[in-house]
């Protein structure tokens, strides 16, 4: 698995001997089962008919050219699209056996269980401590927030850098640190899944490497979905890759479509679909 990821930045996954069971690449233990997912903005069908399974404690990368709907799909998993006026979803996203878009489901609870990290680091203009403590506070956690905050910062590999200045403004941190703070903030709510929407696209290569290492570490405990436009990144960090593209239908309207979904090593070495191959090779030259 993931042989392409014999990269400079991250040790091979087998180096970890944590609680994560060795993966069998052939079988997939799904956390999410997506079937027939379409996303509409008003009358416009931005994404059409996506079927996808997300494996437990795996890293799944969503890649594809701009406008292929990969971010739109990502934002369905925690119902962030609900916040956009006119956005509507059809099809099913099962979280275990529960429909994320079911009538009785509270989107706030969905977002608590399924965290999200954004493209541009977006720490609150508050102290480092208050940023991490925000989620637990909002979700009614009482008692010793100090240990919750520390644990989250340790897991996000930021503790050593900020432990002496927890009261400092989060905005005094560098971009890469801010992004790790946002990851810590997400972890503090104790989600099971972390969605990452191009989390490194605003960062320099060193900060990017740190985040990628962190993702590998986090995958022992969390299921991670990452949207990236950086194919090397997808190859380096992910277990499985979903390739999306934009397709023009008979009436001349563009829709995002899922082209191919497989183990990352296979997508990058031996893709089944011609379009995947063209995209991969085109980028790698």
């Amino acid at each position, binding site marked *: 698995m993931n042989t392409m990821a014999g990269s400079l930045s991250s040790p091979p996954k087998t180096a970890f001997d944590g609680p994560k069971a060795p993966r069998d690449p052939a079988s997939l233990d799904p956390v999410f089962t997506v079937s027939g997912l379409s996303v509409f903005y008003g009358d416009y069908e931005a994404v059409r008919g996506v079927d996808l399974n997300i494996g437990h404690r795996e890293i799944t990368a969503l890649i594809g050219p701009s406008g292929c709907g990969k971010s739109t799909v990502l934002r369905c998993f925690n119902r962030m699209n609900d916040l956009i006026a006119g956005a509507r979803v059809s099809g099913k996203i099962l979280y275990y056996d529960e429909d994320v878009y079911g009538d009785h489901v509270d989107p706030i609870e969905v977002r608590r269980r399924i965290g*999200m990290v*954004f493209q541009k680091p977006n720490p*609150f*203009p508050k102290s480092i401590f208050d940023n991490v403590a925000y989620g637990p506070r*909002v*979700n009614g956690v009482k008692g010793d927030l100090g240990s919750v905050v520390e644990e989250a910062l340790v897991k996000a590999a930021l503790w050593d850098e900020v432990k002496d200045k927890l009261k400092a403004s989060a905005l005094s941190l560098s971009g890469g640190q801010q992004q790790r703070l946002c990851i810590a*903030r997400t972890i503090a709510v104790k989600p099971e899944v972390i969605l990452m929407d191009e989390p490194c696209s605003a960062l320099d290569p060193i900060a990017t490497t740190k985040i990628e290492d962190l993702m590998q570490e986090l995958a022992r405990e969390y299921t991670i979905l990452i949207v990236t436009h950086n194919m090397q990144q997808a190859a380096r960090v992910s277990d499985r890759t979903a390739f999306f593209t934009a397709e023009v239908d008979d009436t001349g309207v563009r829709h995002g479509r899922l082209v191919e979904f497989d183990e990352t090593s296979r997508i990058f070495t031996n893709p089944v679909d011609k379009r995947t191959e063209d995209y991969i090779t085109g980028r790698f030259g």
Partner: protein
Amino acid sequence: MGMADVSEIAPAPQALGRSRRRHGESVVKAVLLTAALLSVATTVGIVAALLEPTVGFFTHVGIVEFFTSTDWGPLFKPPSFGVIPVVTGTLITTVIAIAVAVPLGLAAAVYLSEYASARIRRVIKPTLEVLAGIPTVALGFFALTLVTPVMRDWSPFEISLKNGLSAGLVVGVMIIPIVASLSEDAMAAVPNGLREGAYALGSSRMTVALRVVLPAAFSGVVAAIILAVSRAAGETMIVVIAAGSNPLFTVNPADEMLTMASFIAQAGSGDAPVGTVAYNTIFAVGSLLFVLTFLMNWFSARLVRRYREVYE
């Protein structure tokens, strides 16, 4: 081809130093500077105009009497110059106005910025701003002929025909648009990424509004409130019409009261001859209003510096 060849073939580069005066630019700059200086000069002029009669006033009236006596009647015989009743009158009407305008204005701002759809916002916000365009003389009669009678009918307490409560309430209504509109501007300027981050952590809409957006917009919201307070403290017409002209020393908002602004209007529209103590009193009260407003602005600026959350 070597470097030497290039220098032989290529024409000598044109010098950059051909400066060309752009006359339009300097004219624009001069016009803008004039505009900026004009507003500074106006402020300085107002202070200067206030200063001389104020000094004249205090050569006739003791500063201790002015600030400690509770008897105000500079136009009566014998005159009395205790400013406390008009200060309390101003404070009471202003506090009532703020008590009305801040909660309602902020609630409206939160609604418009965080809850309302774009379509509703497009209708409500201009409508709200129209409220700011109602002539205050009309609002004054609204207070006197509608608000006061209704309160007198329904209240278990004694309410004077002219009273600070009714005036304060209507001044509050008058400044709601200032609080709401400017606060909404400040909240709308908060980057959407902060909202998304908060929602993604499992926040409700209310939590996002109160714990993320409002704190991030704090300095803008405080600026809106300061402007509203200054406007309320200086409001004249509504108070003249609805609160009366009797400078009672009272803390009961249901009583008739005189404010600093309404005293100035009352005395200024009379026939106090230039240079008399009565005439100078107008300026002394004006100076005091100016100083109080200035102190409040200064204090709020400190408050903002201390508590604001800087994003970006």
